């Protein structure tokens, strides 16, 4: 069974619209959750992690243990947010091993 699920392969919004990229995980323990981003022609890089509780580039994500979700949100999308976004999980008994979801391509239209 897929451990990290990103149900949308593609999400298209207009500039200035709110955006939410969905991520669900299956682990019943206490995982760490991350969002990684890959801009066009750039390498995969960390966007944010749930333990930091920070906002990066206007994005936030809240870990909801009841719903086992870690959705990524931004109130007003910008064209430069267009990229591939990957949700990832790290379990407490798995060292530094990450398990990634399948990714969502965000397209922000002008």
């Amino acid at each position, binding site marked *: 069974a897929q451990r*990290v699920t*990103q149900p949308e*392969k593609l999400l298209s919004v207009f500039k200035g619209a709110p955006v939410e990229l969905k991520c669900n995980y299956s682990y019943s323990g206490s995982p*760490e959750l991350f969002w990684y981003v890959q801009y066009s022609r750039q*390498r*995969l*890089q*960390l966007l944010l992690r749930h*333990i930091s509780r920070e906002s990066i580039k206007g994005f936030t994500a809240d870990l909801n243990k009841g719903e086992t979700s870690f959705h990524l949100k931004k109130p007003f999308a910008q064209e430069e947010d267009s990229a591939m976004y*990957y949700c*990832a999980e*790290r379990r407490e008994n798995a*060292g*530094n*091993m*990450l*398990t*990634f*979801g*399948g*990714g969502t391509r965000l397209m922000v239209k002008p």
Partner: protein
Amino acid sequence: EAGVVQSPRYKIIEKKQPVAFWCNPISGHNTLYWYRQNLGQGPELLIRYENEEAVDDSQLPKDRFSAERLKGVDSTLKIQPAELGDSAVYLCASSFSGRGETQYFGPGTRLLVL
């Protein structure tokens, strides 16, 4: 700082041929990871090294894949012989040791097996 360096960036080979990928991690990073990313999917871990020791290779197809990190710095991932299904992007990442450390990714090697 160049970040994680990988070469080659692209490789096209015929099936049954051998292929090798090279990775140079960020200076000082003890932990090195190899991932495979199939088209339309997220990266999947193949093997993780702590210095020169492979500490997690459970996802590495050992019949045709091998990896080494002899001096605890650079690493090589080899496929011999390659199959059509091996076409993917092979990503290398590195981090400091420790569970909370951020992984930094290289640009990847895109392999096409014909």
